């Protein structure tokens, strides 16, 4: 580290120069469209998840690697052991110094890594965020796993299907002030009102994303509302705790449960029949799309403007939305048929 003050400016200049060269080469390739070589043969793409050893990101990175193999670039993954805001900065700096063509990041903090990302972009690294965004001015595009509307709608559809379109339902949420959950719940209420007049939302309770509290709230919910037909839990901790309670209670088979969960958490309860189906995005597709988005930005095919379109391999064509946001799809529904294909 001691030699840095002397060497750094030179090294940085060299990196900057090579990145500039590479950029111009790639930019040239992008203009004449589908030239296979410039279309990705040289692209080196680095995935930087929130942390390593996290099955969710192992799955998304696998999707990213699949996409990079398809367009023939070089895939690498780096990341901190723990998901701390400052842990990612050093990896961003390294990627910039090594002249990576694109960096695909799931941000641990919307602003803490901003400066590092912008420095990387200045030396020509295409920055794509996925799963968890930074402030929009620190990246080129954001690949969002699902839209709030899609999440709300999928859950309402699932619960409506499981209770036959009419009955009483309740929601088990995370913390009372959780922004995401509250937004989804609002949209779910609107959706219920508009399209499912037979379904009555009788209660919303908060489990604080704590196993024990969610568990006890589920018990209280079932006790308070004796005619309850289903519980929707738009949080992975809540749905697993509720499933655990219902699975060995007198309510098993009587009360349906759905919401957002991960396959590993829910496997037991899908197998024993407590839960018929639940939703979440497919992290593999998310990583896959993020890699293709990185490809599109690095080759100059898109600039992250609203309305830009690009091809994402097996997923087809995507359009960039407002503020450089690309939405994967409606959430993915997991059930007894497909749950064994996933491990995260």
């Amino acid at each position: 580290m001691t030699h840095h003050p002397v060497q750094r400016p030179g090294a940085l200049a060299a990196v900057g120069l090579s990145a500039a060269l590479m950029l111009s080469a790639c930019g040239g390739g992008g203009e004449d469209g589908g030239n296979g070589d410039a279309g990705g043969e040289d692209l080196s793409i680095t995935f930087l998840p929130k942390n390593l050893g996290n099955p969710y990101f192992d799955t998304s990175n696998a999707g990213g690697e699949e996409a990079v193999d398809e367009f023939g670039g070089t895939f690498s993954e780096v990341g901190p052991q723990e998901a701390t805001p400052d842990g990612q900065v050093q990896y961003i700096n390294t990627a910039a110094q090594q002249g990576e063509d694109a960096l695909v990041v799931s941000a641990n903090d919307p602003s803490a890594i901003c400066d590092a990302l912008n420095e990387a972009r200045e030396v020509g690294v295409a920055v794509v965020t996925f799963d968890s965004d930074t402030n929009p001015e620190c990246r080129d595009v954001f690949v969002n796993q699902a839209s709030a509307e899609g999440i709300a709608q999928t859950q309402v559809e699932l619960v409506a299907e499981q209770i036959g379109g009419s009955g009483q339902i309740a929601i088990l949420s995370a913390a009372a002030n959780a922004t995401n959950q509250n937004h989804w719940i609002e949209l779910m209420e609107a959706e219920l009102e508009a399209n499912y007049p037979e379904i009555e939302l009788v209660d919303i309770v908060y489990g604080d994303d704590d196993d024990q509290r969610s568990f006890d709230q589920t018990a209280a919910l079932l006790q308070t509302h004796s005619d309850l037909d289903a519980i929707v839990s738009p949080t992975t901790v809540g749905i697993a705790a509720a499933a655990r309670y219902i699975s060995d209670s007198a309510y098993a088979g009587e009360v349906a449960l759905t919401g957002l969960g991960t396959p590993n958490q829910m496997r037991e309860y899908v197998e024993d029949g407590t839960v018929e189906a639940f939703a979440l995005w497919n992290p593999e597709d998310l990583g896959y799309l993020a890699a293709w988005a990185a490809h599109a930005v690095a080759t100059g095919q898109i600039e992250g403007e609203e309305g830009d379109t690009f091809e994402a391999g097996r997923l087809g064509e995507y359009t960039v939305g407002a503020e450089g946001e690309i939405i994967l799809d409606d959430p993915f529904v997991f059930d007894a048929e497909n749950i064994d294909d996933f491990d995260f």
Partner: protein
Amino acid sequence: MTVSRSGPGGEEPRVPAPASGSRTASLVAPSRMRSAQRLVHSLLASREVAIVAVILAVVVTATAMNQTFLFSAQGWRDLLLTPSLLMVLAVGSAIVIITRNVDLSVGSVLAITAYMTGRLFIDLPGIPIAAVVVIGVAAGAGLGLINGLLVAFGKVPALVVTLGTMYIYRGIVLTWAGSDRINASDMPGEFLRLGTLQIGSIPLLTLVAVAVLLGAAYYLSSCRGGRQMYAIGSNPEAAVLYGLPVTRRVISAFIASGALAGLAGVMYAARYGTVSAGAGTAWELQAIGAAVIGGVAIFGGSGTVWGAAFGAVLLMTINRTLPIMGVPDFWQRAVVGALIIAAIVLDRWLAARQRRRLEQVREAPE
């Protein structure tokens, strides 16, 4: 000490208490009262009975509002099962508090042993459940031993030591687990069934908690070591001067608290079927709250594990009742806070009254 008790055949107490001084008698020489009178008196004055009365009132109210609270198999089971983990922790906390110490690390110890339970099943497939329970309790005891050694030999207040180990132990489980969590499908079905198994109509975990309570209550009330713990908590300096093994007793109190937190960790894994690094966060405060509500004086030397256990039952039962009564989330927590404050205020008031009356007795001519 003069022992004068009315024998089985004795119609008349040998030392008749003056009618006007029965209150005085109960203060300075309870043994002078008739045994039935003494029983009634101590029952009425007992904090445990008061707590049980409050629990019954809560249960009756909740049942009046919703029949299934008590009169359904599920309601009955929840009523017994929900407090069982906190009961185990509260008993441990009470033992430590009685020696005029406090253990803030129990929530973190619970997290470590709960996560370890899951890891043992994953990393050593086929490990017997009994071995996992033993390892969990032993690991908890080991972590408690560290607390005890630091408090006893470091001469640092337990509040500071266990505040430190609370963060250190939580840090260990955060590093170990990271964002990983133990899921129900990681643990064998037989183990998870233990978490919900009922013997007769009593859940197994409740039986475990009651067994822990009986053991601790017997030790504290009837064994030399237990009585010494009260003596140490009442007056640590006097206990040293008197030659009590203060160091040994304090360390054993922390080992007991740690071991019980370890047991609660295993129970947690069995009951909730899912463990993350955040398991048991803030449970140490609930355990201390339960002990205080149950009449265990925060400065040591008085209270019983019965009180702590009933305090735990009251806390958890109120937690379950308030949503049924339609009390909003925020107020549910406020009620718990109010209960703790009320319990402490009541303690101070009773202690002050007791002291005043003792002073009156001392000053009054015989």
